[in-house]
């Protein structure tokens, strides 16, 4: 039995033992009392105590997650650092199923006593919920697993000396500000290490460590009575510091800054229908909103009706294998295994093993995203008796529920590039990077913008445009896709913060895709005069 006091003492000893390495590394290890691949004995014990207590109090099923989250944020504007923050959050959340109703409770008191108390509280909450639960929860079976996993990285971003991070951001800003017309530069780094131990009454006991990095860069140019910004699409990834350095922010900053300056003199777009050529840096978010969210089974069943919304891909019995979602070129894969992706894991927050499966096959809707308490509802329709492993909670103090895996557009068979698509287009607009985005609560009507837009005439880029947004209806849009890139043009985008649920939770998710062309899409002009 390890008490909390003993645990902290052990942590302190561990820190002393780390002395002799660099100043930074030593201090970092102080902040990170455990970081082993085999799981932390104290976390294991606390989690196991919790589920036993829930069981003793009458739960038919329980799981406990001990989570430790290390986050580091650094922000810079122009020649100065505007924020350096290092945070840690540690706690335990316990979920209990009692007579078919869920209860959840969480505390930052990660001791055996705290775990028992919070487990009993979860059971009490479940009993209260039982009075207003008429359809008992049924869980899809999953084998018990034991083990550990960590994001493979060459260099843990939290361990990189802070001086190096600060120097990188200031140098990138400096390089951008040399470009004529550019007045402001903002850059930042969001770095995360998340350690989770999960124990379930099904016999699962696992520990996972996730590493994620999210660099950012925006420049603003000022003209006479006008200002234009450009944000580079630096996809956050489930990768190490080596990914950040591979982006060469300093070397590329002048190029990005020049785009902002050029936007000041770009032509304002004429409204109308154009062939839209979407670069992967823009298309990933369109996939996220118009395919990722509507294919969540909890949404389709109305569980998000009061907040994030429902889905046009409902009811399941009328959709699976029957709904034409898009053109035959459209094959959309869901997975939690893709290298460097944000939602990659070995097991989800219910201990279900990560896998990949098709959501859309040759343009037809094929399957949903599921968790254990949703999968049984469609097992007779899709023939899948297990959860697809989409359970995730963004913190120890939030309850796990269905969150999006990586959802990606698979490349076409031909070795097509964006240049080939441009060459094949008579009158079109190329859009790069994410701009504004908005979609309705059933995921039909969407309107997206970008960061940079180019006019295409007779197979060639003829100039830069501004004030562009495209507006479409999901099935029409995907039905109009008539040309897509090949493997070589595949790129993995993503977001650190996808919101869903009440209370709101944020998850990280990646979307891989190739450039694609969509015929005759409505383009609007977003400029107004004050």
């Amino acid at each position: 039995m390890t008490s909390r006091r003993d645990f902290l003492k052990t942590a302190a000893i561990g820190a002393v033992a780390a002395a002799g390495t660099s100043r930074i590394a030593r201090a970092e290890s102080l902040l990170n009392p455990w970081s082993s691949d085999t799981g932390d004995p104290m976390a294991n014990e606390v989690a196991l105590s919790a589920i036993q207590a829930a069981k003793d109090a009458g739960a038919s099923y329980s799981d406990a997650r001990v989570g430790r989250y290390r986050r580091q944020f650094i922000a810079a504007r122009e020649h100065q650092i505007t924020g350096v923050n290092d945070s840690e959050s540690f706690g335990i959340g316990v979920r209990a199923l009692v007579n078919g109703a869920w209860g959840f409770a969480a505390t930052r008191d990660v001791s055996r006593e705290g775990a028992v108390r919070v487990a009993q509280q979860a059971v009490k909450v479940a009993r209260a919920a039982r009075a207003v639960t008429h359809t008992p929860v049924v869980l899809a079976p999953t084998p018990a697993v034991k083990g550990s996993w960590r994001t493979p990285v060459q260099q843990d971003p939290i361990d990189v000396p802070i001086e190096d991070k600060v120097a990188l951001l200031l140098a990138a800003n400096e390089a951008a500000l040399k470009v004529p017309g550019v007045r402001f530069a903002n850059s930042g780094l969001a770095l995360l290490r998340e350690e989770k131990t999960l124990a379930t009454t099904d016999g699962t006991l696992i520990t996972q460590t996730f590493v994620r990095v999210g660099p950012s860069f925006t420049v603003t140019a000022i003209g006479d009575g006008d200002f234009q910004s450009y944000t580079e699409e630096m996809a956050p990834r489930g990768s190490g510091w080596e990914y950040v350095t591979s982006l060469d922010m300093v070397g590329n900053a002048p190029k990005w800054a020049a785009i902002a300056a050029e936007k000041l003199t770009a032509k304002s777009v004429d409204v109308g229908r154009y062939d839209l050529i979407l670069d992967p840096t823009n298309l990933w978010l369109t996939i996220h909103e118009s395919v990722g969210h509507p294919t969540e089974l909890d949404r389709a069943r109305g569980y998000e009706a009061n907040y994030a919304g429902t889905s046009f891909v409902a009811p399941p019995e009328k959709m699976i294998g029957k709904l034409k979602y898009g053109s035959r070129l459209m094959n959309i894969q869901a997975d939690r295994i893709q290298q460097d992706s944000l939602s990659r894991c070995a097991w989800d927050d219910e201990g279900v093993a990560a896998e990949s499966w098709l959501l859309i096959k040759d343009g037809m809707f094929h399957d949903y995203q599921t968790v254990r308490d949703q999968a049984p509802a469609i097992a007779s329709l899709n023939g899948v008796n297990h959860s697809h492993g989409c359970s995730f909670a963004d913190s120890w103090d939030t309850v796990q529920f269905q969150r999006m895996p990586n959802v990606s557009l698979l490349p076409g068979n031909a070795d097509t590039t964006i240049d080939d698509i441009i060459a094949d287009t008579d009158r079109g607009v190329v859009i790069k990077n994410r701009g504004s985005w908005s979609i309705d609560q059933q995921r039909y009507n969407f309107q997206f913008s970008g960061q940079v837009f180019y006019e295409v005439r007779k197979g060639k880029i003829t100039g830069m445009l501004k004030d562009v947004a495209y507006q479409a209806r999901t099935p029409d849009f995907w039905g109009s896709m008539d040309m897509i890139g090949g493997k070589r043009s595949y790129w993995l985008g993503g977001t650190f913060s996808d919101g869903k649920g009440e209370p709101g939770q944020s998850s990280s998710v990646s979307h891989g895709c190739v450039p694609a062309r969509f015929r005759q899409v409505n383009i609007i002009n977003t400029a107004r005069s004050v």
Partner: protein
Amino acid sequence: MADTLMTRDAMQTLAKRILAMSSADETRVNISSDAAGNTRFAAGDITTSGDTEDTVISITSTVGGRRASSTTNLMDDASLKRAVDTAERLARLSPQDPELVPELGPQQYQNVDASNADVSDLNAASRAHAVEQLITAARAPGGAMPIDPATLFVAGFLEARSGARGVATSKGLFAYHASTDVSLSCTARTPDGTGSGYASAGGRAWTAVDPGALGRRAAQKALASRNPVAIEPGRYTVILEPRAVADFIPGLMGSLNARSADEGRSAFSKKGGGTKLGEKIVDERITMLSDPFDPDLRGQPFDSDGLPLKRVVWIENGVLKNLAYSRFWATKKGVEPTGGGGGGFGRNPAGLKLAGGTKSVDELIAGTDRGVLVTHFFYIRSLDQRTVLLTGLTRDGTFLIENGKITKSIKNFRWNDSPLLSLARLADIGKAEPVEAGLVMPSLKINDFTFSSLSDAV
């Protein structure tokens, strides 16, 4: 619960303990302690319910003109010392901050009583009872219903939070504020999937919420909104209910940042330099303010620096009266800081109030020849900062008004419009009411609101 609402004394003792560990030139400690309970429901069943508690401590250290912070929720001495050391180490490694303003010394605060025991007492059983009341009311038979209300799909969310915030500096400042807030929202959908209605309420006290009334209202909207017809997108007179106004108008707050305006990158920057301070920017019936002492807002009387927050009138009778000045920008410009971090898209800690008129929503409808009634909005995003142009969609109850009456349910629209430009096209203003804790908004009637396309979503 272990962390239930840390008292003033407990928070001050904790802050002193942390400050005693510090060796920096200046140190600030921010503490937030929260206990929250929530219950979520869908298909008439509770789907998740939980109780959580946490205390988060943030330490900001300044060493030789350099500043950094670290945050932890571990409260034993070793962990706190580690957090202090981290903040100091990060500060030493950071470059000098040319915009650094010194931490504040002792300040005078006026107390705001923003806590209600009926919120902290709202346990899982009481929440379940409230949800049951709501669902029962939504599904109650009554009147000539087109469909059986018992078949309505009802989903929603109830959350109750008790929290305390504290700020302490090594220069002797200490500020403490406790508050509660509660909110209940629900969406009722007809079984044929053609009708959807929404209702919500919230405030600092549970008495602000009537679960049965919310259930009835959402159900009534769902039934009335069945089988919507499409009308052409275009410019319409709209009546926005207070919830829709609360979704839309606070989008202005980010543009109120003084520095952005001075730097030429805000809707309140003037061509050729300077800002629009003192200029008439919207209809003269518009007055918008933040005030922690307003009994309708009961906001936090200080910001995260510990700066006392006062009443700030942003727009008065249509004139831009104030921009949001951070302490740094205020010093540079020789004005008083407004606090609150210098603006942002979201809420001000002191609350936000758009002053209202005397008319009810029904009276606004009665005075409208042709228009669109909007229940609330969804997925609002910025399109152009130069004009605060936003996009979003209507949702859960959109109706056509003809000759002073609601005549039909209409399909939802996507809109592209700006709160700034909309308030300049104000036609009428309804009664202001609390929408959620710290937010008071009226209903508004706006001319020529731009609906750009139809949405098939219900």
